[in-house]
């Protein structure tokens, strides 16, 4: 049964935890890259709401929310992102390599590898945990990676209980995915023996119902399905995405790049003027696409769900405060766990 309040709480928790992580990253308490799932809460929560003990999930580089939704403590995740010894993985993995054996939840920073891993989880379920399933999460860019395509076919051939969830934001880092992707993703999946659907990921209820059907199929031995869900990701590919920076701080971020770009456009030796113009136009389109990717209320799965909630303003405020408190608490735990002088770790 779809429980809108519970779903809203889950999505909001993901949002707040990821915001907290973004803050820590901005402060320099997390080193390296940081890929978050802000904007795709409807997909993550709508699918993972159906999972229980013994079910498994394979995540990609954007796995924070998935881990949370499977029940991993927020503090353990935050600490892991900070590389602390008492983080989820003892600080060895970091945000791209979150693992929880108890939850049968794994991640990987190699694009496409969630597919084979989920097949493995599903194979183990076939043998050891009848009616249990595995879910793979990945982006639309990953659909061009051979191992993922192979895994769709393998799941079909072996009737594995896998749900393949493609989070389609139309972009892989800076590349417009339609520009480098032939055919359609549903047709591709079907050509690999896995039938699927294409839905918007903004409305968690739609995702929830579709995932319910597909996971039921898997649980009853009817094999894999493919769910393509669309979403917007306002933060760009990762925190500090240069494209986002160019859009939001054009003077500071664009200026140093403009000189070389203009000289590249003008200098002798190279393509024809027409080809150079075409190239510049595409660069501008790429930046423009980024600029237009504002979550806004209409594309924000959390706000959309909030609007539809059938609870009193008081209850809502209570729920939201609870979430804030939980996240604040997790954050504090993480900060307390910092070794003395730990703030300097990455400085």
């Amino acid at each position: 049964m779809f429980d809108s309040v519970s779903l809203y709480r889950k999505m909001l928790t993901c949002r707040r935890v990821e915001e907290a992580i973004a803050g820590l990253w901005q402060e320099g308490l997390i080193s390296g890259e940081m890929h978050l799932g802000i904007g795709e809460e409807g997909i993550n929560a709508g699918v993972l709401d159906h999972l229980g003990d013994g079910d498994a999930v394979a995540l990609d580089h954007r796995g924070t929310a998935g881990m949370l939704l499977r029940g991993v403590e927020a503090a353990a995740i935050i600490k892991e992102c900070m590389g602390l010894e008492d983080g989820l993985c003892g600080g060895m993995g970091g945000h791209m390599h979150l693992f929880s054996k108890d939850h049968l939840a794994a991640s990987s920073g190699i694009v496409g590898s969630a597919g084979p891993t989920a097949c493995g989880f599903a194979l183990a379920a076939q043998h050891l945990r009848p009616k249990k399933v595995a879910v793979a999460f990945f982006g639309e860019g990953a659909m061009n990676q051979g191992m993922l395509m192979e895994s769709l076919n393998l799941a079909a051939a072996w009737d594995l209980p896998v749900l393949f969830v493609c989070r389609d934001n139309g972009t892989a880092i800076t590349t417009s995915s339609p520009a480098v992707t032939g055919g359609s993703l549903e047709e591709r999946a079907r050509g690999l023996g896995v039938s699927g659907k294409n839905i918007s990921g903004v409305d968690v209820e739609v995702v929830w119902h579709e995932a319910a059907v597909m996971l039921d199929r898997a649980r009853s031995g009817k094999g894999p399905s493919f769910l393509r869900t669309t979403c917007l990701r306002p933060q760009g590919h990762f925190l500090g995405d240069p494209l986002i920076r160019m859009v939001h701080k054009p003077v500071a971020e664009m200026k140093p790049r403009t000189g070389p770009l203009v000289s590249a456009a003008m200098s002798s030796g190279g393509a024809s003027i027409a080809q150079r113009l075409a190239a510049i136009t595409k660069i501008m389109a790429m930046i423009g696409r980024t600029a237009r990717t504002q979550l806004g209320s209409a594309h924000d799965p959390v706000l959309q769900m909030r609007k539809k909630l059938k609870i009193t303003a008081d209850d809502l405020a209570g729920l939201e405060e609870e979430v804030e408190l939980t996240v604040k608490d997790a954050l504090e735990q993480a900060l307390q766990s910092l070794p003395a002088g730990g703030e300097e770790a990455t400085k």
Partner: protein
Amino acid sequence: MREMTFSQAIEDALTQAMKEDQRVVVFGEDVHALRMNLYTRFGEKRVRPAPISESAFLGTAVGAAMAGLRPFVELILIDFLAVAADAIINQAAKVEAFSGGRWKVPMVVRAGCGGGYGDGGQHEQSLWGWIAHIPGLKVVVPSTPADAGGLLLAAIADESPVFFLEPKLLTDDLLEVLGSGGRTTVTYDIPTGGRSGPVPERWEPLALGRAAVRREGTDITIAGAGIAIHRATEAADLLSGEGISASVIDLRSIAPLDRDAVLKDVESTGRLLVVDDDYRDFGLTGELAAAVLESGLPARFARIAVEGTIPFDPKREQKVLPNVERIYEAARRLMER
């Protein structure tokens, strides 16, 4: 003691493992034919033919191992690892470290390795040094039926990803298909020592990472694995005719590597000759050289390994693979230094 061929030992040990542990599942291309007996006995659920999708099924093995099975993957030839290396080096090898030691990947990849039957440079590589370079992986290379069965059980029981590499010249079933194809008009230079031999009544796992001294000598230590052991033993026979006494150390496991066994022997002989069917550079021969230098032992050193892409022409192929003559000559030269 029973007597078995190399292939029989492997299938027998695998049968025992499958009987004793329901979690052991076998998959890979053509396993219904390659493992016809197991397929018949354990059924398709436990012996499952796969599409030509090495990345998918090796990656599946990783997930399956993490979720409680003990996958035994038939990769057929180690050369094919290249199409699926990510599943091994970026996933299988790293899960334990990434998870802070909390999650392990107990899987076995079995593959034929090595040449000597004229199949060309894309089907005759050994690549154990390539695998062993990556932390988190184990690699064993048996040279006798008894070791094959024992190491196989140990590989299945191990909590890490283990490669079980079978020198094809020793493996009657693979060689029959890839080499002779039912012909009596071809023969290959198959070492008699490893093709068949005594095996225990009941298989017990052999500890991984323990070399075996196949022959004790006083003048020179010859170390290697797989086919090289048989070639070295033959060369040692020749050398003893000239009054040179050679030890032969069968590493059996490339990773973990029993450096101590080699060093102990070199301590008394003062000379080390490493024989390797894998490529020479950045491989096993260098790793043993480093072990010698790090130990501070004074030792003379030479190595024989594969120095380029293996030629198809069987005559040239014989020359580039470590053979008895090359070992013999290198050992003699080393004695003079």
